[in-house]
């Protein structure tokens, strides 16, 4: 059997092997699109609202008590919120268009995955430390008795280590293999381009 025979058999496949119930399908696609848009909106809203609330909460206490630790907490909450929002906005603008050539799409996808790797690998610097340092200082300076302060510091420390390790595991198990897969594909695509 030659390749031409295979090609002839392939092209003889019944023209329609699949009967789609287009009305139901369209409803489902629309529902999915709405749910996608809604999920993105509420995710952004949630992150923004929590950050704004924390900034307001610490800011308000700071104005009442005039203690530098609360100003510090308000500023770090604001920093983390703005960082997430700006990063998300920039990434959305750079999202790979699905109808580009496979090569272009793979390049954009790789850049996106690499950015996610960078983001999660550096989660300590832009998320954990800015939030943890003022919290640690607060517990150390105003946590009450020595035992209470120590317990609070220990719990906060364990929580931060857990979040950090969770992020690094995601990078190792999901993002790095995906980046390698895309790099391999791109190497093949551009081997003789």
């Amino acid at each position, binding site marked *: *059997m*030659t*390749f031409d025979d*295979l*090609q002839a*058999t*392939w*092209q*003889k*496949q*019944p*023209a*329609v*092997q*699949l*009967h*789609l*119930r*287009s009305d*139901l*399908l*369209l409803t*489902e*696609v*629309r529902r*999915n*699109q709405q749910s*996608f848009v809604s999920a993105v909106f509420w995710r952004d809203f949630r992150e923004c609202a929590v950050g704004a609330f924390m900034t307001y909460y610490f800011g308000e206490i700071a104005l009442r008590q005039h203690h530098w630790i609360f100003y510090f907490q308000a500023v770090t909450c604001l920093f983390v919120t703005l960082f997430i929002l700006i990063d998300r906005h920039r990434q959305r603008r750079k999202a790979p*268009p*699905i*109808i*580009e*050539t*496979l*090569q*272009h*799409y*793979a390049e954009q*996808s790789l850049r996106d995955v690499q950015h996610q790797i960078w983001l999660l690998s550096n989660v300590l610097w832009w998320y954990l430390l800015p939030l943890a340092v003022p919290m640690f200082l607060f517990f150390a300076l105003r946590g009450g008795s020595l035992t209470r302060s120590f317990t609070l510091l220990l719990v906060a420390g364990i929580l931060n280590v857990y979040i950090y390790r969770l992020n690094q595991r995601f990078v190792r198990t999901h993002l790095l293999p995906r980046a390698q897969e895309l790099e391999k*594909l791109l190497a*093949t*695509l551009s*081997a*003789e*381009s």
Partner: protein
Amino acid sequence: MTSTEQETLFRQWLAAHEALLWRVIRSFAATQADQQDLLQDILLQMWRSIPTFRGDAKESTWIYRLAFNTALAWQRSEKRRHSKHEAFTTFMDAHGSAPTSDDALIERLYTAIRALPKLDASLAIMHLDGLSYREMGDVLGMTENHIGVRLTRLRKQLTEQMKGQNHDL
């Protein structure tokens, strides 16, 4: 583009390219559940991309790009699949034509394509569909020369694989 125009174009594309979509889906996903999952992803991307269609590229080129790019990003996810599967099951009816002697051969061909790396699988589908090197280049972003080199190897590989399977039977 109005919602009605988007819907009309979606229905037209679905009717015109149903067979193409089915061949791509069957080449990338083996089980019915995976096929439904991938089909839904592709159709969702098709719906979203319609407002950006300006007619610069051929409609079929656009559909191939969309299907291959979605298949590239698609990964089996048990959890995700369960949530989508139930709602989607009723949208597909199996084709009711009588089985032919070619069915077994075509199924083996699909199995062979699924075993290929995604890029080679994409090339194999388009080559079997009879696209020109230029059209394949437009979809993948590769030079015609590069496509020619890869296809020579791929044709040989697929033919030998199918011969090997014939001997096994």
